[in-house]
Every structure is written in structure tokens, then in C-alpha cells.
């Protein structure tokens, strides 16, 4: 199994180079951003937003600042999503035939794929945690706990996405990786709509039917959830990963030749 993980990492050599550049870029841009929010033009913009009569509170300005930072920090983790290319590479080379002749049971071949993708997600998350440690020394936009919550939330969401992509790749077979990515995103959006249907409906009615407009509480709620309730995403991610592995294994055992 270790050999297959090594092979997957070899496959991702190009993406790993990109990944390293993304991490380096995010570190530089985030530090510049934080310095600007404290001493530079962004600090002046923040002050101006508070001065102007546009109903913005200090919390709104702070959240606006942290939102931009959170988006930067998504990048190292989200860039792992592209690493699903390893499936395409195997399909193109016809490696499945070769790996099926190895003395590695099917369950371990599948596990190797999960290990590769989730280790890379782990590296992305670790890079973000180090960055968060550095940033919270420079700024008071977010505390380390809030940063950590966001990182756990985003990493968990990417874990869910990757687990679904692996499942759909195995379900649909080689050459359909783009469909697998689309179906994974659609499944996540659908699950979100089903779970939060009542809340979404009430927000929709308040904004578009009763024309109350968009209040800042509604807008910042998801950000607060990301900061404070990362463990919810984490447990969902663990559940989805186990489920994805079990279903993928079942499909792979019946269909064969897909992993």
C-alpha cells in the first residue's frame, strides 16, 4: 500500500510544486494584508467605513476584514481539490490493470487513495494553522481559536468534497472525473439546502418578499458558524469519509477495475 501512496505522490509532483507556490503566496499576501489593515490603506478604509453614515458597526468592519483573510486562507486547502487529477493520470496510463496485479488487497488500494488525498489536505491545514499562529500575533481581526475553527471547517468541507469525488469517480469510472467533481459539489449544495431549508426560506422571505433588506446578522452568521462550530463540520467529514470508503469499496469489489 505504501508503494501506491508513493506512486500517487509521484503523480502529483507538478501539483505539489503549485501547492508549494500557493502556500508561499498565501503567506506573503496574508502578512501584507494584515500589515495593511493595521498600518496601511486598508486601516484607513476601515476608519472611513466607520465614519461614513452607512450603518456599519465596528463588528461589521472587523468581520469584513476577517472574511477577506479567511478567503486567502482557503486557498492552500482548496488547491488540494485539484489533486483529484491522480485519478485521471491512472486512467490515462492504464495503471489500474497493473495495480490490480499487485499483491495488495482492493481495500488497501482504495485506502491508499484516501491516505494520499487526506494527507495532502492535512498538509494544507497544517500550513494554514502555522499561518494563523503567525497572523494572530500581528492582528486582532481574529483570535487563534477563531482562525483554528475556520481552518477545521474549511478542511472538513474539503474532506467531504474529496470523499464524494472519490466515491463518484469509482461509481462513474475513469474518464468521468469532471462529472464526479460536479456531482460532488451539487450533492453538498443539495445537502446544505435540505438541512437548512427552513432558515433559507425565512431569509428569502424576509429579504425578497417582505423586502426587509439584508441585515448584517444574517450575513455574518455563516462566518460565525465557521469560526465557532468547526467541530460540526469535522464530525460530518469523518462520517462522510467512512461512508464514502465503505460504499466505494463495495462498488469497487463488484465492478473491479476502477481502482
Amino acid at each position: 500500500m505504501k508503494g501506491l501512496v508513493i506512486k500517487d505522490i509521484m503523480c502529483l509532483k507538478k501539483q505539489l510544486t503549485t501547492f508549494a507556490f500557493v502556500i508561499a503566496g498565501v503567506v506573503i499576501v496574508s502578512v501584507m494584508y494584515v500589515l495593511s489593515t493595521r498600518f496601511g490603506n486598508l486601516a484607513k478604509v476601515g476608519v472611513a467605513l466607520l465614519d461614513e453614515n452607512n450603518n456599519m458597526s465596528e463588528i461589521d468592519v472587523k468581520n469584513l476584514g476577517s472574511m477577506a483573510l479567511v478567503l486567502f486562507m482557503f486557498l492552500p486547502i482548496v488547491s488540494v481539490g485539484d489533486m483529484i487529477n491522480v485519478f485521471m493520470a491512472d486512467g490515462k496510463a492504464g495503471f489500474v490493470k497493473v495495480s490490480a496485479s499487485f499483491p495488495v488487497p482492493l481495500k488497501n488500494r482504495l485506502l491508499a487513495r484516501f491516505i494520499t488525498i487526506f494527507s495532502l489536505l492535512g498538509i494544507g491545514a497544517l500550513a494554514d494553522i502555522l499561518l494563523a499562529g503567525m497572523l494572530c500575533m500581528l492582528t486582532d481581526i481574529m483570535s487563534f481559536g477563531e482562525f483554528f475553527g475556520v481552518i477545521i471547517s474549511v478542511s472538513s468541507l474539503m474532506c467531504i468534497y474529496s470523499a464524494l469525488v472519490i466515491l463518484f469517480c469509482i461509481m462513474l469510472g475513469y474518464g468521468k472525473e469532471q462529472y464526479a467533481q460536479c456531482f460532488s459539489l451539487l450533492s453538498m449544495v443539495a445537502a446544505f439546502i435540505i438541512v437548512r431549508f427552513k432558515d433559507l426560506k425565512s431569509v428569502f422571505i424576509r429579504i425578497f418578499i417582505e423586502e426587509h433588506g439584508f441585515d448584517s446578522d444574517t450575513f455574518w452568521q455563516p462566518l460565525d458558524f465557521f469560526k465557532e462550530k468547526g467541530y460540526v463540520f469535522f464530525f460530518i467529514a469523518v462520517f462522510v469519509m467512512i461512508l464514502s470508503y465503505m460504499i466505494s469499496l463495495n462498488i469497487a469489489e463488484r465492478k473491479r477495475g476502477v481502482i
Partner: protein
Amino acid sequence: MDGINNVIELDNVTKDYGDFKLDGITFSVPEGSVCGFIGQNGAGKTTTIKLILDMIGKDSGEIRVFGESVCKNNAGIRENIGVVFDEMGFHEFMTGRDISIMMKNIYKNWDEKAFFDYLKRFSLPSRKKCGAFSRGMRMKLQIAVALSHNAKLLIMDEPTSGLDPVVRNEMINIFREFVVEEDHTILLSSHITGDLEKLADEVVFIDGGRIILAGNKDELLEKHGILKCKKDDFGKISRSLIISEDYNEYGVQALVNDRYSANQLYPETIIEPAPLEDIMIGYVNAGKG
């Protein structure tokens, strides 16, 4: 066959794809032999090999390799099997070194030194990406991998197809070296009967998903013959001897299943030894009716 261990045993194996069916496949490969698995394209050779390697699941029947039943929980059997496919399968960016790094973490008995010795012997550069290799080089790379983990059984699916005669001959010599060891066995599928005639001890003919003939190659070549006679004389020949016949403007050519009996019964006819290719064509034509 008492006292002979069979390395591969297939007993009434069936696999139904709807439009193609492997039907009641039964044959065995004795230890220390080279078994040629012959059939035209689409006859079911690759499907049978995939079943032996548990790459696809069988519908019914029993497959045993080294005496152990092939099933999903028995991947360890493949530690002793070297496999060569008709296409390389390794990623094109991989070099010989990359492959060795991967393989030593897959096979317990991976012999790095043997692998690099094979690369040197086959004139394969270990630092060059295998995507840049010619077809012959790619096949040699696969063989180097298959021979570098102390495998006792080599399973090869059309390893010589599309190769020039010189490279084919070189590969046949490598296979001969492999079977010098008494416990080494080869199952080699091919539709190039000339290669199998040089190498095989046993042959198994497959056509339309059914085994139509299996046995010792020399015995099969000894038994079968091509009978040539005039059209008028052909009617006198017993049908039980004839497998298939081919009419042409000069007379009739027929594949017979017992050339010595035919010779004794019909001394006026010409009966020549039949090469494997003619035997294969004869049986395939007989199947078509």
C-alpha cells in the same frame, strides 16, 4: 498427470458479459511448464487472465493458483506472480528508478539489484521517462519488473504482439531462461502461434469463450495433420477423423485429428504435419460450422 502439481487450475469457470460469455472454462497449467494460451482476438484470453488474477469476478466455477483459491481476500498469492500486459500501464513520467522505488514498497521480495541488472541487460536507461520508450522497450520494462520480485509464475497477455521478430526472439530467450528453474511456470497468451511453437510445452486453444482443445503441444502436433486429396476421394474419408475442411481448385485440404490412423486407412492421400496455426484455424472454422 499424477505427481504433477498444477500451478493454475480453472474448473468450469463462467463469466457472462451479456454479449460475450466465457463458458465452462476448464484447464490447468502444470508446474515448471510453459503453457501457450492461444486464440484469435476476442476469443476470451484476456478475460480468462483477468479472472486468474482476480481483476474481475467470476460468475461460477473455481480458480486455484498455487493450490489456493483465488478470491478477494487472497491478494497475497500475487506476491509470487509476475504479470506482463499487452500495454505497459506505468505512468509515462515514471523512470526505471521511480518504478523501483514504488515496487520495493509493494513486493516483499523486490530485488532492486536484479531489476537494475535487467534494465542494463535490456539496454533500458534507468533515468529516462518510460513514456519515451518504444513498444519493445516498454515490454522489456514490464518483463524486468515481472522478473525482479522472485516470481514463480509469469502470466503474460500478448507480450510479443506488435514487436519485430528480433525483439520477439530476444523475449522468447528471456522466457526460456526463466523456466530453467524447475518450479518456474509461464502462462503466455498469444495469437502468434509461431512464438508458442518455439516455447510452449502445453497449449490451450480458446475460441468464442470456450476451450476447444488443450494438451501437450508435442502430442497435439504429433496427432494432428493436414490431409490433402482430390475432391472425389474426400467423400471416402471417415468424418470422425476430420475436424474441418477447405475446398480449393486443386482439391481438398482437411485438418485431421489422428494423422497416423488416417495414413494407415487412406495411404493414397497426402498427410502432412500441421503447425499450431493450422490447428487453431481448423478448430475455429469447425466451430463456425
